[in-house]
């Protein structure tokens, strides 16, 4: 029955996210004697005095930016020089500068948009020392940012220390989880070797060159850290990345586990389980709604086969049989609602209406969202929701006992509006010029969908794509590379500024006049704000792309081609 897998994965992750969130709060925020503090001491010894001090928000943000600049630079150098570096058994050449810019930006920003194809363009050294390294530290940057935000909301004017948080997130959260997942994948049959390609002579006498490598290590952190950048070009559709139904369940659960747990970590640090439960419920409703819709729309048959002597079946173009009938839809939503971006079915080949659901996931970008940053995005909607609700009933808007005033609202709106600006602005430029128009695989609404998807993916720091798009061109590489960097750091830095501003305000005593943010009413308002803001900004895109294609297909014409 097609609902077994979605229900199993979603419920299992929701349940295990609660203890994991508690653990994360301890790992990230514990100040008592124990493992986290011993790690702090090591960080201070390795990194020097800058790594020992408590930082206010602008210092914290500065450390984060400098470290991320180092990440970007190191990886750019590795990619453009990989031919001269070790662990290159299949003799891959150096990456061109525009593609290396895009790739370094993509992995620094935790996006993992890939305009290259792993098995064709990367050496083992690049896979491990560039791609996989960033998959750890970019995810850790997101968790660090969220921890700092939570501390500010809890009223601490010093948000912590970026390097300490980075090390705690990496060593105590990401490494153990990734190691467990990687071992699981190895047992499922995912390769883990430094030997070069194997060459087979097939039963019919042809030669088949079989790319392999240290796959399990990369795939594990790709999933756990909402990274999404696959070892192989077609990501987790590849039988080596994702050999079986069991590996598919492990990998799909790994996508949403940490984003879910991050919400509980917030609740624990700010000291309110109920505040976290409201946010979790809102995210859960959005996520489950998208999953349910996609599972149903994807059961429709492949439209191009209408009238041919073919048995009735769901749309199987771009899908693998071993994962079962609902796995593609479940994963498509999991990966886009969370800013992961890995795939186990080709999104370009999803039915038009199904293809719109991942876009909605990326437009909203809060249905759990990326590790750490998903909650940060939701925080912007929370501030907006509190403000709107406060205005409607004529009360001073407050959140967690702090007044929300003009400064906070300006910062929140700036961060919120950056997202549609990057998406709509980019699409407008590329749809109107040969930069985009000449690179689409199909004319008509589906081609527009390819452009829409690419900019949505870059701006949401997602990384999946409608891969029919010929996106390895200098305009695409430079434009999406820049969008990814801006869309990464603006929505981290501005909320930190809000947190810094809130932390310095006096905490108001709760009274009968306080608008409560830990109940069902606020949950409904928050859902409304997310949907209305999302719908107003992005509905026209949905109509011009996927909905137009759906109507053309179901109306019996194959569209204006």
């Amino acid at each position, binding site marked *: 029955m097609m609902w077994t897998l979605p229900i199993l994965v979603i419920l299992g992750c929701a349940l295990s996210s609660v203890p994991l969130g508690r653990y994360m709060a301890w790992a990230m925020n514990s100040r008592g004697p124990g493992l986290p503090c011993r790690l702090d001491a090591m960080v201070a010894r390795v*990194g020097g005095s800058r790594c020992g001090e408590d930082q206010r928000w602008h210092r914290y943000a500065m450390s984060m930016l400098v470290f991320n600049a180092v990440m970007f630079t190191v990886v750019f150098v590795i990619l453009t020089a990989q031919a001269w570096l070790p662990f290159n058994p299949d003799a891959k050449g150096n990456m061109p500068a525009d593609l290396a810019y895009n790739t370094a930006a993509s992995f620094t920003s935790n996006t993992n948009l890939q305009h290259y194809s792993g098995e064709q363009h990367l050496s083992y050294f690049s896979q491990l020392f560039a791609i996989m390294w960033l998959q750890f530290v970019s995810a850790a940057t997101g968790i660090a940012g969220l921890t700092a935000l939570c501390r500010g909301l809890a009223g601490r004017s010093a948000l912590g220390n970026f390097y300490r948080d980075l*090390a705690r997130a990496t060593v105590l959260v990401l490494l153990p989880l990734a190691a467990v997942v990687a071992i699981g994948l190895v047992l499922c049959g995912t390769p883990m070797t430094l030997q070069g390609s194997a060459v087979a002579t097939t*039963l019919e006498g042809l030669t088949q060159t079989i790319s392999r490598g240290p796959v399990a290590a990369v795939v594990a952190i790709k999933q756990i850290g909402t990274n999404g950048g696959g070892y192989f070009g*077609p990501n987790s559709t590849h039988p080596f990345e994702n050999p079986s139904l069991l590996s598919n369940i492990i990998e799909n659960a790994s996508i949403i586990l940490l984003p879910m747990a991050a919400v509980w970590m917030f609740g624990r640090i700010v000291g309110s389980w109920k505040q976290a439960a409201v946010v979790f419920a809102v995210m859960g409703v959005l996520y489950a709604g998208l999953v349910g819709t996609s599972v149903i729309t994807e059961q429709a048959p492949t439209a191009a086969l209408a009238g041919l002597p073919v048995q009735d079946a769901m749309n199987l173009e771009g899908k693998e049989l071993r994962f079962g009938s609902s796995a593609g839809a479940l994963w498509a939503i999991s990966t886009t609602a969370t800013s992961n971006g890995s795939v186990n079915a080709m999104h370009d080949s999803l039915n038009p209406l199904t293809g719109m659901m991942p876009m909605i996931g990326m437009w909203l970008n809060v249905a759990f969202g990326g590790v750490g940053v998903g909650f940060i995005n939701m925080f912007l909607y929370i501030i907006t929701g509190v403000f709107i609700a406060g205005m409607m009933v004529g009360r001073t808007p407050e959140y967690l006992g702090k007044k929300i005033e003009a400064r906070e609202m300006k910062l929140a709106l700036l961060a919120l509006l950056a997202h549609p600006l990057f998406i709509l602005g980019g699409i407008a430029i590329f749809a109107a010029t040969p930069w985009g128009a000449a690179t689409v695989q199909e004319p008509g609404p589906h081609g527009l969908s390819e452009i829409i998807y690419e900019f949505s993916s870059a701006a949401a720091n997602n990384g999946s794509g409608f891969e029919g798009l010929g996106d390895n061109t200098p305009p695409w590489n430079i434009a999406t590379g820049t969008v990814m960097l801006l869309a990464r750091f603006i929505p981290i830095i501005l909320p930190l500024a809000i947190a810094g501003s809130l932390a310095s305000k006096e905490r108001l005593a709760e009274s009968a006049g306080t608008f409560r943010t830990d109940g069902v009413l606020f949950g409904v308002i928050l859902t409304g704000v997310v949907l209305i803001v999302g719908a107003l900004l992005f509905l026209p895109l949905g109509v011009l792309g996927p909905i137009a*294609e759906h109507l053309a297909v179901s109306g019996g014409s194959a569209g204006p081609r």
Partner: protein
Amino acid sequence: MLADLIASLRIALASILVCVVGYAGALLGAASLLAPESRLGRLLEIDAQVVGARDLAQAFTRPEYIWPRPSAVDYAADATGGSNLSPANPQIRERAEPLLEALGATPENPAPAELVLASGSGLDPHITEAAAIFQADRVARARGVTPGVIREAIEARARPIGPGDPARVVNVLLLNIDLDRIAPAGD
């Protein structure tokens, strides 16, 4: 700024040692203990000659073999990928028509859909049991045996996808190796 740069460089180096050298090194060690064979890609050998990987489809076009799903990359295992075509794209239809003819599909005897639809990786090793049985008569004729022999071999290779999914799938490469053993082709 400078203090941050120095701290960042040191922490970056330390994190590379831990996350790349330590983590990948430990996993390479663990994999060679836990899965010494499959960590290399589960290659299949016949007479000390590598004939393919158990998990990867390869091209089969001769009548005596069961055919896998079509591949957008012609079964290249070093340049993998799907068609990325919209499900409404006429190219899918153009690709399907000659395949359906070769399979002998007719309106009275329609073919299972996956036999004309490309997978995401281009290397899906499986087809459904029904899609294998659909080809049994052709394979039996080409090998000069009764269709029952082929059906039995298919049955033996069929595995359930998993709990909650009624369909059973067959690994095409393993099945074809079986067929070569059970009923060698005339040449």
